């Protein structure tokens, strides 16, 4: 019979082997990502081109992307805060169905969403909007609309999970102290949810910056008009300008890393 000590030793060894195996998978994944970045940098060094970096097209694409992503994510947040409040705090019929519907843009292909928008703007109410309010299809507002529809589900789910994580007892106490529902919302729930909402905004914004499928379907890919960063990357590859594409990818990568860093800082502070 094996002694108790031998059994304990062999079980500890098996535990170490398991951790090591999982760690190796993680290491391979990290190496894979680093290899991708290395490829990008190697490509940039091998074929330098002054034209790409100073191109006014490039700055146009960056400016347009930052502007549209900011507008669309502010709109998404403005919609998702009240929507998430109702979903998180109120009981009403078909609540789960409404909740599921709002997740649709997260799982549906962005091209399909863009195409649905395009189809909508060819219907009578859509045409009315185009003619009487402002033009959307193949215009800059089309980029905002495309980004909005893609990111709004993400914004709702992030804000809702922030609200869900806050015990309603805080609002209840506020109400027993004389606060109206609105005061409990603005003076208790929103301030407590501040960091979560900020993180939701940053993640939504980053997702909007990277939006391609719906944008290209609804707003098209017109140089110096509806050319966002992802569209510019696509166009550069399509015209075989790999160097320019790599510069654009590097910019997109830096933006994403910056946002992820900020989000992690926000979450770390709130815990």
């Amino acid at each position, binding site marked *: 019979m094996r002694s108790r000590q031998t059994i304990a030793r062999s079980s500890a060894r098996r535990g170490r082997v398991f951790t090591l195996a999982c760690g190796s998978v993680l290491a391979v994944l990290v190496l894979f990502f680093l290899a991708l970045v290395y490829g990008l940098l190697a490509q940039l060094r091998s074929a330098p081109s002054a034209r790409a970096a100073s191109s006014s097209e490039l700055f146009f694409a960056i400016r347009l992307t930052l502007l549209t992503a900011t507008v669309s994510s502010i709109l998404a947040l403005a919609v998702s805060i009240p929507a998430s409040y109702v979903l998180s705090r109120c009981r009403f019929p078909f609540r789960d169905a409404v909740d599921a519907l709002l997740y649709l843009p997260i799982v549906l292909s962005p091209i399909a969403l863009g195409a649905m928008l395009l189809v909508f703007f060819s219907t009578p109410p859509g045409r009315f909007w185009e003619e009487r309010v402002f033009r959307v299809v193949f215009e800059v507002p089309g980029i905002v609309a495309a980004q909005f529809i893609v990111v709004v589900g993400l914004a709702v789910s992030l804000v809702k999970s922030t609200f869900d994580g806050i*015990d309603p*007892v*805080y609002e*209840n*106490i*506020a*109400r*027993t*102290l*004389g*606060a*109206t529902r609105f*005061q409990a919302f603005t*003076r*208790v729930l929103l*301030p*407590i949810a*501040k960091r979560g909402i900020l993180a939701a905004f940053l993640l939504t914004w980053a997702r909007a910056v990277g939006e391609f499928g719906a944008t290209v379907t609804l707003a098209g890919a017109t140089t110096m008009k509806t050319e966002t960063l992802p569209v510019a990357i696509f166009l550069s590859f399509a015209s075989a300008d790999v160097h320019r594409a790599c510069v654009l990818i590097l910019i997109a990568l830096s933006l994403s890393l910056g946002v992820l860093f900020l989000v992690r800082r926000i979450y770390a502070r709130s815990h």
Partner: protein
Amino acid sequence: MLAVTDLSARAGAFTLEGLTLALERREYFVLVGPTGSGKTTFIRCLAGLHPVSRGGIFLGGREITRRDPADRNIGFLPQDYRLFPHLNVRGNIAFGVSVRGTPRGEREERLERLAGVLRIAHLLNRDTGTLSGGEMQRVALARALIVHPEAILLDEPFSAIDPGTRVRLWFEIKEILHALDVAVVHVTHNLDEASAIADRIGVLIDGRLEQVGARDEVLLRPATERVARYLGIRNIFEGEVARANGGKMTVRCGPVDLTVQGDAPPGRRLSLSVRPQDIKVIKPGQPLREDLRDNLFEGKVVSAYFCNDFCTVTVSAGAEFEMRFPSYIYRRHDLAKGKRITIGLRQSAITIFPAASPRNGHGPPG
């Protein structure tokens, strides 16, 4: 001051049924009951945070059953206090007067006064995350009291406080609330806490108020078998009246006959309970008090265990009797396991309730 009539409410599969209660001004009422008995649902109904399906709630003579929590003037102290994490101590306390638009001068005056009464003036600029359990409790009390509520609801207010500090705070908090002229509904499952501070106690079991009465009345004379069981009394015997004579009756409870005060007809089924503190060890030859003479039993010590300075001993004497006394009694009588002893039940301390329909409390028969 605060009155509840025939209050019913539903919470999922659970229901609160027909609660009726009236609190005097400055009364300190403690509601006890096992976990899941509906205590928190009840105070949520009072605060307006849970819908009432039937009955009424009245405060100072006006009905508030369907009023918004903001217009009830009832303070609420939740379990763990839940101070607003985004505000410091001052911001937390001033929240109520700030949302009500109280003028700044009055706001400051109320805040300073309460901070003085609750001795938290030195904490006003502190972050709530740095407070101890006791400090948090005072800040939460100040937050609830600053709007001058007519009644205050405390949900397990001492659960987040170290046991060492707790006992001192029981009396301090009661004194402070008494001085501030509010009626208090204090919910707890801690019987020691209830017996230390309550003016009156209510026992809520499975959504029904089984008994309401002065502190000693409830603790010494449970009205129903369910209350007796909740109070931890294990000496509950069911039996049938064998004979009754001149205000005394003998109830046959299986192998033992108990003599109790009362006058029920022979054949009536009854339940009897006696607190472990009311069973005494009888020394051979000891002169007996009148009260102990009728219920003497000889038996054997089955088990003994100690908790703090008290000892709980189980004696098998036909039925099993649980006794509790200070540890020195154990040593004095040398009550080791297996020892044969005589025990006596105090007749006046035996509580009687009908054996059937234990849900609704009735007085003792006769």
